[in-house]
């Protein structure tokens, strides 16, 4: 790891010894860090989540949820009154959850680990990466302290303790959302409610599909986030593509992979979308209307005047929360279908 040659070149005396010693120290420390991996695998029902067995015996009574998708999923399962704390909302919560949301402590970004412990949760649900050493600690660490954890299965890190490191996330589909709902429902004893929510989501999507059955039109859609120099777009393997296709459209950025990849204005002109959805983020009080100034700027920009979406003025604000894989995804399909086929959806 530390080359004794480079050390010698840097003039360090006894470079071989130094290299060996420092490597030894690192290995020993790593070994110490790993020693907390023994999960309690004794009796009692468990659920598998990202390769980790989560004890499922008792229903958790004090839930901490981090990231918007996890927060709303907990609310959707009717567990809003068991929430002791939430963190990291991307946008305003759905109106039906607003009251319950007010009651729990809210943190704009992840609180310190000590703060989390102060809230004495027995379950931590995370939508993105919370279980890293510099956030809440690994899931094994928390398990030792008697705190159960649940990670959205579409965002499993490669190993416990690692973060959301993928620059190109894997495929995320609606099925992942359903799986998480059902798993979390089973863990928290709200299996029935979970089934209801899943059924509702499926029926919403089926309803949209029905109405789209007769139309052959598939408008080209782009979901973008504006920046100073170019745009960040949602690409092919993001759930946004799924949502767009279910809503009867086509993702104009199909040849770009990833979530929020940077492209230039010329690329946008070349792709020529017919409908543009402009993302808004990040804060507990940010909603679609926050995209209005950006939409106005784009409409006035002479460089973009040739794009179909700008000519027809088909730009809409779209919350980041709705574009992410969550309980909102069925609603997202409906909303996008409304933008793409306004004649079919009132």
């Amino acid at each position, binding site marked *: 790891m530390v080359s004794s040659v480079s050390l010698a070149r840097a003039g360090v005396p006894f470079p071989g010894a130094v290299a060996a010693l420092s490597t030894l120290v690192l290995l020993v420390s790593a070994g110490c860090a790993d020693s907390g991996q023994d999960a309690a695998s004794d009796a009692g029902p468990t659920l598998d989540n990202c390769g980790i067995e989560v004890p499922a015996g008792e229903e958790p009574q004090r839930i901490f949820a981090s990231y918007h998708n996890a927060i709303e999923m907990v609310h959707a399962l009717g567990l809003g009154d068991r929430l002791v704390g939430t963190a990291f909302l991307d946008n305003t919560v759905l109106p039906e959850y607003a009251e319950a949301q007010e009651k729990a402590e809210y943190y*704009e*970004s992840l609180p310190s680990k000590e703060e989390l412990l102060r809230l004495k949760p027995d379950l931590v649900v995370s939508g993105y990466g919370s279980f890293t050493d510099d956030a809440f600690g690994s899931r094994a660490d928390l398990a030792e302290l008697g705190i159960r954890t649940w990670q959205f299965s579409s965002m499993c890190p490669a190993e416990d303790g690692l973060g959301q490191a993928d620059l190109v996330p894997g495929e995320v589909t609606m099925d992942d959302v359903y799986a998480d709902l059902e798993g979390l429902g089973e863990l928290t004893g709200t299996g029935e409610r979970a089934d209801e929510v899943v059924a509702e989501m499926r029926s919403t999507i089926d309803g949209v599909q029905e109405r789209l059955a007769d139309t052959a039109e598939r408008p080209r859609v782009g979901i973008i986030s504006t*920046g*100073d*120099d*170019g745009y960040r777009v949602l690409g092919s393997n993001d759930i946004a593509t799924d949502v767009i296709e279910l809503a009867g459209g086509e993702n104009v950025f199909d*040849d*770009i992979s990833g979530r929020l*990849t*940077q*492209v*230039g*204005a*010329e*690329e946008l*002109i*070349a792709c020529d979308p017919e409908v543009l959805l402009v993302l808004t*983020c*990040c*804060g507990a009080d940010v909603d679609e209307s926050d995209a209005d*100034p*950006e939409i106005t*700027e784009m409409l006035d*920009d*002479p*460089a*973009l*005047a*040739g794009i179909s979406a700008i000519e027809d003025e088909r730009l809409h604000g779209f919350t980041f929360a709705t574009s992410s894989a969550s309980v909102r995804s069925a609603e997202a399909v409906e909303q996008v279908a409304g933008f793409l086929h306004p004649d079919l959806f009132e």
Partner: protein
Amino acid sequence: MKTRPRPDTATRRPVSSIGLARGNGSRAAGLAIALAALSGAVAASILIGAHPVSAAQVYTAFTDPTGSDTDRIVLHLRAPRTAVGLLAGLALGAAGTLVQAITRNPLGGPDILGVNAGAALTVVLAIAALDLVSFHGYVWFAFVGAAAAGVVVYAVGSLGQGGATPVKLALAGAAVTAMLGAVTSAVTLLDLTTLNEFRFWSVGSLGAADSAIAAGLLPFIAAGLVIAVALTRSMNALALGDTLASGLGARPHLVRGLGGAAAVLLAGAATAAAGPIGFVGLMAPHAARALVGADYRWILVWSAVIAATLLLAADVLARIMVRPEELQVGVVTALVGAPCFLYLIRRHTLVRL
């Protein structure tokens, strides 16, 4: 117990015959080549991009625009970008030369005067406190912040006896930069939206500013360039050390003051237009010095031309290297410029400041 005095760079005379181009004839010829390279970079910046554009189309776009996609791209995307790159590059090259002359510090780029740190802090405050999330909103804040930081650094560096000596200026710059940087970090860590906006501004980009902003900053850049050119003889004198310089009739403190003001104007305008692009202003004077020796009359011009060429070339590369995605110009200038810089250091005699 006395230590042996180390060779004092202050009293070493600059040797004007060091450098690849010796003698004014070859320097002039070399400058013509450099200008040709710059023109090439300008042309490349207008012609190259995701959308193929030919020279004929560029001509019609300027003379007889018809509202086609190509016209729009040339007139509203490529031309402003090229103009910003040209202006910012010239400004950064000149500012870097000035800074290295007045601080006699080879580690110095324009940001040693705290310009980048000042701009960053005001941008971050504008985003966080005033909710100004678009470039057009905070561009003038950046300029004001850059200028203010430069003034503070100069004022602090002039404290104590002796006025603004190179060492004190460098120390003041380092201290102020660190302090402003710390406050900037604190603000971005406390407000996630600000971090999200700031991290893209802080890599530098030529596409954010449009023609209006470029036109607005042009007077400041022009003023800075004029002052810089007027100071070149005095900068040559300054390189001999304060005592000798005064003996030659140059007034060191006045020269440093004016030079500092010009550097702040130039660097502030460049940072406001294109974000903090850190490496160009530092490298261009060294490259110029390696090529034409130690005469600041030549170094200034060469440095400005080299910086502009590097910036525009880097921007072209940034646009096409990872198509359809895009890199930021600040990343590419270092990726491209640093190896060139290292090569130069390795191969050529270095002229000491």
